[in-house]
């Protein structure tokens, strides 16, 4: 290190220069992160006159270091270190040069920092420093600076004089027609943001022109970004203007030859629909939506299907039924038997939620057959999606209409070879049980629930015990004693210790939802008996389970039955059993006292 740190001659910038010369990136990075310390040590005046010019002129480092610098300079408090808002403009030169580097993340960070620095600028300083900088960037030779410029217009536009505003609009228009697609993409991405701060009359006169250019660009990557700006712009226009200026663009985009543009329309459809309003939607957008549902590209169909519910529920009430039944329903019918499983599965996840919208009769007439088709679909995901949204249909037509087809589908999913599918269906069993009622459940599903308890995947057994608990919560303790407990407790005699453990896990959870009486008479004896098991894992789980039981039964039982078993376990030879039994014992004894 070239600098002796004798008190008077210590020169922080020299230290920084020295540090930044180090080979180790990590070290350089640390130094840059300490920029605030250096600035504080220098004081605001020297920070302005020495540190910032140094950073502007000399910094050429790893992108990582540059990124850290851009972040530091944009910190909301760094303005204080240069002497407060009236000097905020001194931060612009280093950030301006960072905004022109090649690496996107550095540039983006620099732009972000510039945007936050812009807030500290007075109107006069915006005119004097910020706008000229935007103009320099916007006419930069290399595309990187022009791309960065696009993101800066909207933050200062509102604070400018009319003539400067005019200049900014001209500059932005030039960027929209730039030679490089990268710049046009950046402009398209920022168009909506700029529209929001612009005066309505200029939006209509000036910005619409730019928007048209971008929406008709030769590159699909530009056109699709224009679609995104569509919603923001149309929220600023009157109904007539939307009809004349925006609707044709949406319609053209929905028929674009590039599937990416159509995908974007599908994806943004709800927002577009919202800004356009129900009336114009009726005349203009229902058709476009229907055609997207029939798109040749599966990605587009899937994206559109995902928007079905939002689209239908936002239609104006007076024409909703008719529009859905005449224009949308035929498309849905085709989608239900689509060749692509992702499309079908996207449809399956929303189709049920249409039934409250169309009402009981139409649901029975049109949607029910589709539910049934999808319930029999070859792809488990489709069936699962249908079953998982049963609730909304149940409210409209009741589940009985479906139970005929529903049960075979559930049974099949319950035995699916993929354990994740089995797991998913288990999670819906309590919901189904509620809707089917106790009787149907007993008859059709109870066996399944028991079967899952002896599944060979632990995650399924675990979920099955939780499921049993939830069922008992719904159907009550008595039902548990009659229908569930005999089978669960019977597993305690199984030769496989994993099944014996499952009994314990189930009891562990059921204790919370059963009455003390049931616990004492049915469960406790079984658990106590398992205390004599010859597998250590079973034994220490007995200790854990007994602790829970002890809290739910009366003290006499704890004293006479539980504590003796625990004591016996505490004297076990296995260290784990011993440990858990001792823990359990101390808790049980505390209860007795």
């Amino acid at each position, binding site marked *: 290190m070239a600098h002796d740190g004798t008190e008077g001659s210590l020169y922080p910038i020299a230290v920084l220069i020295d540090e930044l010369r180090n080979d180790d990136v990590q070290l350089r990075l640390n130094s840059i992160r300490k920029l605030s310390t250096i600035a504080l040590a220098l004081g605001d005046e020297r920070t302005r006159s020495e540190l910032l010019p140094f950073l502007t002129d000399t910094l050429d480092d790893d992108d990582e270091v540059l990124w850290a610098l851009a972040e530091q300079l944009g910190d909301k408090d760094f303005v204080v270190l240069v002497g407060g808002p009236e000097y905020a403009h001194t931060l612009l030169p280093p950030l301006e040069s960072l905004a022109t580097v090649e690496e996107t993340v550095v540039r983006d960070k620099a732009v972000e920092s510039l945007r936050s620095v812009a807030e500290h600028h007075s109107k006069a300083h915006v005119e004097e420093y910020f706008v000229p900088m935007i103009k320099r960037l916007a006419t930069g030779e290399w595309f990187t600076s022009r791309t960065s410029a696009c993101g800066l217009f909207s933050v200062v536009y509102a604070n400018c004089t009319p003539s400067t505003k005019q200049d900014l609009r001209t500059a932005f228009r030039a960027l929209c027609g730039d030679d490089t697609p990268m710049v046009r993409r950046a402009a398209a991405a920022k168009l909506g943001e700029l529209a929001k701060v612009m005066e309505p009359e200029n939006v209509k006169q000036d910005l619409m022109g730019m928007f048209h250019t971008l929406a008709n660009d030769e590159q699909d990557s530009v056109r699709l970004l224009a679609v995104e700006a569509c919603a923001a712009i149309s929220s600023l226009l009157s109904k007539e203007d939307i009809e004349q200026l925006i609707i044709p663009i949406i319609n053209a985009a929905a028929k674009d030859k590039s599937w990416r543009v159509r995908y*974007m329309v599908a*994806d943004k459809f709800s927002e577009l629909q919202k800004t356009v309003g129900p009336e114009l939607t009726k005349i203009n957008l229902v058709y476009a939506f229907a055609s997207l549902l029939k798109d040749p590209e599966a990605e587009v169909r899937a994206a559109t299907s995902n928007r079905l519910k939002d689209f239908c529920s936002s239609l104006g009430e007076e024409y909703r039924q008719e529009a859905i039944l005449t224009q949308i329903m035929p498309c849905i019918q085709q989608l239900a038997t689509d060749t692509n499983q992702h499309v079908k599965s996207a449809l399956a996840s929303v189709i049920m939620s249409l039934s409250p919208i169309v009402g009981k009769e139409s649901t029975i007439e049109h949607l029910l057959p589709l539910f049934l088709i999808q319930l029999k679909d070859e792809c488990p995901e489709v069936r699962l999606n249908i079953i998982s949204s049963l609730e909304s249909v149940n409210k409209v037509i009741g589940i009985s209409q479906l139970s005929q087809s529903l049960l075979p589908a559930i049974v099949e999913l319950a035995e699916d070879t993929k354990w994740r599918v089995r797991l998913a269906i288990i999670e819906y069993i309590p919901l189904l049980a509620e809707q089917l009622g106790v009787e149907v459940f007993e008859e059709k599903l109870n066996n399944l629930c028991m079967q899952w308890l002896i599944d060979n995947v632990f995650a399924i057994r675990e979920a099955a015990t939780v499921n049993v608990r939830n069922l008992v919560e719904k159907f009550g303790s008595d039902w548990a004693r009659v229908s569930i407990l005999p089978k669960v407790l019977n597993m305690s005699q199984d030769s496989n210790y994993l099944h014996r453990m499952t009994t314990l896990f189930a009891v562990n959870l059921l204790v919370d939802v059963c009455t003390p009486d049931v616990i004492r008479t049915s469960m406790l004896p079984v658990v106590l008996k398992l205390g004599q098991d010859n597998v250590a894992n079973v034994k220490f789980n007995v200790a854990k389970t007994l602790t829970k039981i002890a809290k739910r039964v009366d003290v006499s039982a704890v004293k006479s039955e539980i504590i003796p078993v625990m004591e016996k376990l505490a004297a076990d030879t296995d260290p784990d059993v011993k440990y858990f039994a001792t823990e359990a014992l101390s808790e049980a004894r505390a209860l007795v006292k």
Partner: protein
Amino acid sequence: MPRKGEKKEEIKTKPPPPAGGSPPPNGPKKEAIDGLPPNPHSPSALASQPQVVPRMHVTPASSYSNVAGRIPVGSPSIRRDNRNQGSSHFNVSAKRDLQKLPLLKDAPPNGREELFIQKLRQCCVIFDFNMDPLSDLKDKEVKRAALNELMEYITTQRGVITDSIYPEAIQLFAVNAFRTLPPNSNPSGAEFDPEEDEPTLETSWPHLQIVYEFFLHFLEAQDFQPNTAKKFIDQKFVVQLLELFDSEDPRERDLLKTTLHRIYGKFLGLRVHIRKQISNIFYRFIYETERHNGVAELLEILGSIINGFALPLKDEHKTFLLRVLIPLHKVKSLSCYHPQLAYCVVQFLEKDPSLTEPVVTGLLKYWPKVHSPKEVMFLNELEEILDVMEPVEFNKVMQHLCTQIARCISSTHFQVSERALYYWSNDYIMSLVSENCEVLFPIILPALYKHSKSHWNKTIHGLIYNALKIFMDMNQKLFDECNAKYKESLEMQEKQHERRLEVWSKIESLALQNPQIFKVPHFRATLGVLNERPPTDSQERVVPESFLPPDLTDKSADSSSPDILKKPRHLMRRKSGLPHDFETAQAIHSYQAAELPSATPLSSNEDSNLSAQ
């Protein structure tokens, strides 16, 4: 460097005449396709090996989301159910029943042109191969036969390409080939593995292939007049053609490559535009999406273009090297196109050695930090560059360069370390080092000392032993001096670190005296926690008593090292035996890669041509 001259020679050689024997059914196609002799240094030779050909990337839809969150993450990432059935969605023609027309050779001479046009128009009917492959089978066959006949007709007949044929033939190509590519069928993001995933083949290939081949023969025909064609093959045409390079089908990209190459060769007025559009594709690839299937093919064409640049190089070309080719090194899928890229870079340096410094600086800037296979690629490329580097240029960059080499030697990934140490078996590099050993020994030796015994991989010990021996033979006295200084510097490091801490704490105390500190509480909080020790290697260093593995007499080390040095120099990571799918493999094998022809049509009069028009 005998390779230097040779390489140029090989690229510029005209393709040998096609092997004798009767032309296969597809006829003259072979002529264009059996190109250069296999040349290990030429990227086109690499591309003709099927296992290297497949490169593919990921759905553009999700790539947009990578950039700016255009499409929400989690939007359907659709994988096609039947992966090899992916096809572009052509706008299938409404009217698809084709009438078989009489053969051209049976037509009376004065009716041939009209029949030719009729057939060209007939072939503009587009069929569906995707949704229902078995539809319109008879009509598809009519089109296929017609396309084959057309191709034969323009290759065997003279004077058939009349003025009225141009719009029709070019229209035929445009209608059939220009289309929006389907979503990529391969997984996106982290799941994507260029070496494992299979390319999706174009289902309409039975027609598309003949369309491409017809068009190629059209462009290559003797009667072909670029001046007449340029009305139809214009800038827009080129843009659409370039968009197709993102196709997932390696066979299509291969034909596109040849097609674009021909157009570049014949249409002088389009050259600037083509280069500009290729740059735009690369910018997008580098800075926005990181996804493109055809980068290797485009680079291959560029390799041939660069080869033809006239000297002195124009600024535009230099900018292209530094702003496009060098940044291409940082994209994560570098392995898909690295040989082609390295070839382009070396081409530039052979043309203009003064570019060495910026190129090497650029490479060092983008040097991979954690991606070891990529680091090995960089080391490969750097050796190629060193091979053509002039001593004057070496002097300019040697310090930074050798610092990086020293770092690579210290890599815990033994392949990186090994690859760097292989430089010691390159005589030219060693001669460059030996001329500058005063400067370079102090940079490189510490890395060698440190790992001479401590690297976990035994192979490295042998290689370091050798490297040290070579250095010792180079300059024994200097070697001993450096040895001594190294010990000293280890102690110095500790002191330096202490001094740094001291200086920083002084700055902090200065900072604390600044009254503004109370206005910026969160900066204040960072004071004092600043000087966490950087992860230098001073902590883990091992100071061996003697740095030289002193057993210079050790037989085992002696006998093992020559073997190591004999290892083949091509250390490129072996690609897995792609593709796995039998049908895909078969389809690719049965397709014979077209070679880029000699660079002669593009060669050095390029710039003079440009100025002439």
